[in-house]
């Protein structure tokens, strides 16, 4: 109730403000409206930087594209094939957003191949190229040996920019003379954008962005397509700056290329980082603080310093102009925020990640994993698996023939055959470096095999991207746990459901009944899965804060959420104590027994792998050296030689005698 009250008060305040301003004669509406445009830009940048984790250093390019789309299409002055159309503002604002989104895809396209800081440099490059291009395209002359096919062509207005630009027309609304309609126009656009962003954040698309930000490979292996997800982030982020740029151009009535330089990109980045990347409230706060600082604090402090200078008679202070220091302060601000509060003012407080593998043993001792219960098995999963196919079908679920993969001169996999009958648990063992994980990576699409066939449900998987393979029905876990650390436990599992959900951008924003129902169902299903693996009470914890054993089980829950027919587990019991390993064995057996789930298991715990596997394949130096039942494998001379060791044989004999 108090929340609703606060919202009502906020809306009332925003509506009353311009009139109060006029009554008091403050004349701040213009400046506040300009500030809101920058906040809107920062919110758009937040989609790219905060949600998808892609550092964009050239965001001002999108701002420029939005402004120039408006300027060129809506200027009444003739002089270029591109401009002088004087199209309606209301049409141009949508065109500007569309053009910006298109450019977002163009600039985003290189991200398909580039990661992290290289991507940042590419965006910086585009951010530099766009103003250069705008400047130079104002005066094009091409001369080839005296022949001039193009002479003094002016496409963009060059250094002088575009001037004037038409204003929006609404009957009876004085956009020409009064700042208040502008304020409301920007307020409405800003509020609508915020509303849309909020809904996107809480949709399957928002979760996919964050999953990509946290761990791109793991996201890919959980069914999130990194390519389309990143492109969408770029396109949507750009489209919001298209709105902001077009309103900016129309409000100012004139634009020049100088307004879209690198500094603007950095100021916007400051807003996002200061407030807290990924937090809408934080970005608004950061945007307001920086605008306030830039427009008010620096100017007022200059007055104050000069006053101090006059009273004390220090000439240096009288002549001081702190507004010249603004970029120095922005630089300092970026450094201080990153050093002192990297999550920003309103961001989630995150402790630095514990060093990998530290104290793994301690952590496992701390919690007792509850034994898996058949009745806790989610009904929907049982239902889904039953539809997926029957254990009695004769075709194997996975059939790998002659799989080969080389790294330079090293043959990591050498013509490996492996068949998993439907509903079977197959163990994959071998010494370290035998190629087990390489085998997993080839089956899940992370590595392209150099030769051989991989058929799942009778269809070839070779050449498919990992997320497409997940959609076909193969899920995996990782040897070194790869969760989405800064997402909640529930969100981790929901990302697993990504490839089974269908909401698109309009769906996520408008939320038709089908999307609402789908989302509610996904949440119920995810909670049931968490109850099943024993994490029911921790749904809202951050994944990074879970103890080790819980993280392992969360990874399995996330894999199950993709509704797999085949589950690949890479050393699931690594770092577990015997009791926990036993619980895990029970869990895998139960999944197979109750759901008919097929499992391929890499394992070093011999009790685990010998206890639950129907068949075992042994790899050594990339070659399959044995295949058979656990009993056969335990007595196979080549396996004893390469992996189990002579001692193991004697242990086994001693144990048999003791029985």
């Amino acid at each position, binding site marked *: 109730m108090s929340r609703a009250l606060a919202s009502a008060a906020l809306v009332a305040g925003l509506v009353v403000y311009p009139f109060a301003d006029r009554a008091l004669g403050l004349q701040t509406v213009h400046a506040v409206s300009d500030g809101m445009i920058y906040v809107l830009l920062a919110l758009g940048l937040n989609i790219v930087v905060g949600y998808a984790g892609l550092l964009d*250093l050239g965001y001002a390019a999108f701002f420029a594209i939005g402004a120039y789309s408006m300027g060129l299409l809506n200027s009444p002055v003739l002089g270029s094939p591109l401009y002088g159309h004087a199209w309606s503002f209301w049409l141009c604002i949508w065109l500007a957003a569309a053009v910006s989104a298109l450019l977002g895809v163009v600039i985003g396209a290189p991200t398909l191949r*580039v990661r992290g*800081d290289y991507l940042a*440099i590419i965006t910086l*490059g585009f951010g530099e190229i766009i103003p250069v291009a705008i400047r130079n395209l104002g005066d094009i002359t091409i001369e080839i040996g005296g022949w001039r096919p193009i002479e003094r062509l002016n496409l963009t207005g060059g250094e002088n920019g575009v001037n004037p630009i038409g204003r929006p027309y609404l009957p009876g609304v004085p956009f020409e003379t009064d700042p208040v309609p502008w304020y409301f126009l920007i307020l409405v656009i800003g509020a609508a954008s915020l509303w849309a962003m909020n809904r996107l954040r809480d949709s399957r698309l928002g979760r996919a962005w964050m999953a990509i930000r946290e761990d791109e490979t793991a996201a890919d292996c959980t069914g999130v397509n990194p390519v389309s997800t990143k492109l969408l982030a770029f396109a949507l982020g750009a489209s919001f700056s298209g709105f902001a740029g077009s309103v900016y151009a129309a409000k100012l009535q004139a634009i020049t290329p100088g307004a879209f330089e690198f500094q603007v990109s950095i100021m916007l*980045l400051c807003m996002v*980082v200061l407030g807290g990347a990924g937090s809408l409230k934080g970005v608004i706060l950061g945007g307001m603080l920086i605008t306030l600082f830039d427009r008010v604090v620096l100017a007022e402090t200059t007055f104050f310093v000069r006053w101090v200078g006059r009273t004390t008679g220090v000439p240096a202070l009288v002549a001081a102009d702190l507004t010249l220091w603004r970029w120095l302060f922005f630089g*300092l601000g970026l450094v201080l925020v990153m*050093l002192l509060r990297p999550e920003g003012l309103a961001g989630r407080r995150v402790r630095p990640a514990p060093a990998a593998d530290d104290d793994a043993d301690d952590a496992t001792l701390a919690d007792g994993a509850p034994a898996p219960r058949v009745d806790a098995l989610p009904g929907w999963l049982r239902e889904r698996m039953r539809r997926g196919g029957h254990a009695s079908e004769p075709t194997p679920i996975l059939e790998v023939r002659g799989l080969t993969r080389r790294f330079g001169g090293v043959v990591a996999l050498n013509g490996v055959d492996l068949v998993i009958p439907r509903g079977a648990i197959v163990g994959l063992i071998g010494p370290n470096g035998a190629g087990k994980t390489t085998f997993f990576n080839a089956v899940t699409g992370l590595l392209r095999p150099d030769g051989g066939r991989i058929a799942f449900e009778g269809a070839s998987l070779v050449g498919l991207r990992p997320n497409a393979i997940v959609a076909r029905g193969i899920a995996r876990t*990782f040897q070194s746990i790869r969760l989405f650390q800064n997402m909640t436990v529930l969100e981790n599992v929901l990302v697993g459901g990504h490839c089974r959900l269908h909401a698109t951008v309009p769906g996520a924003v408008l939320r038709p009944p089908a999307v609402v129902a789908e989302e509610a169902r996904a949440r119920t299903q995810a909670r049931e899965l968490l109850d099943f693996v024993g994490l029911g009470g921790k749904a809202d914890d951050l994944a990074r804060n879970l103890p080790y054993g819980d993280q392992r089980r969360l990874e399995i829950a996330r894999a199950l959420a993709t509704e797999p027919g085949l589950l690949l587990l890479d050393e699931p019991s690594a770092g577990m104590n015997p009791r926990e390993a036993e619980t895990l064995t029970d869990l895998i057996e139960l999944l197979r027994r109750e759901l008919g789930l097929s499992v391929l298991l890499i394992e070093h715990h011999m009790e685990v792998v010998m206890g639950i596997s129907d068949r075992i394949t042994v790899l050594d130096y990339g070659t399959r050296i044995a295949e058979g039942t656990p009993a056969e494998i335990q007595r196979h001379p080549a396996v004893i030689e390469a992996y189990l060791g002579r001692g193991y044989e004697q242990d086994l004999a001693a144990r048999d005698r003791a029985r």
Partner: protein
Amino acid sequence: MEWWEVLVQQTINGLTRGAVFALIALGYTMVYGIIELINFAHGDVFMLGLFISLSWFTFLGVTKTLTGWQLVTILPLVFVLTMLSTAALNVAIDRLAYRPLRRSTRLAPLITAIGVSFMLENAALLWKGPAPIAYPDVFPSVEILREWFGVDSAVFITTKDLLVVGATIPLMLALHYFVTRTTWGKAMRATAQDRETAQAMGIDVERTILMTFFIGGALAGAAGLIQGMYYNIGQWWMGYQAGLRAFTAAVLGGIGNMPGAALGGFFIGFLSAWSDQYISARWTNAIVFSILILVLVFRPHGLLGERTPEKL
């Protein structure tokens, strides 16, 4: 000028520009090799190198062209003083701004580096003002072809061109010797390959990183001094532009690869000189950045670098 004279002249231009880019690019590539950070502020250390060297000349009372014995005493002294100054600056930047973030996410130090770059640029702006600063013509300029060889040619080669090459090449060779032949260099290469393993082998990783920033800063300072003596002009924003071009050079050579960075620097030098002449100076930036983008997208390991598989 005949067409071939234009080409020769622009190629010489490119060589001198490239030498400066190469020195800056080495600092980028060394730091990236060792802590995987694009040290965005590196170009601005170069810019400050120019201003600091100017201050050293002023401090030593040099306001006009050096002659005779001054060339072999004062000039080396200013080289050393400038390089020490920028080396100390670069180390201080690392200690204050980057070191606290060693274990944080990869983007955090990059954002910090951008912040540092802004601070340095605007500190220089407040220090020297927005107008271009005249750098005294301390190095004697003699037209070599005409004065020394009596050749009457439109091509213009001066002793300053010799200075650029004569100062750059020994620095690069010294660096190469240091990295490949000394214990320190071995520690640097080991740390660049695998920081944790290097630490386990008893290498003081933090001291190695410090050494890397020190050398990178020194090279950037030398580049700033050379730039000042050659062009006799300096401006607060020149570090940003030169830095980006040098970074492009480092990427071209395969980032982390030192001979690659040097070659890349010369390549970008030639390219920008030719582009200024044959296309248009106003498009040169766009062309350099297009190359940067194309290389990053299609050969992210550079033209010389090796492909490294992603760790899973």
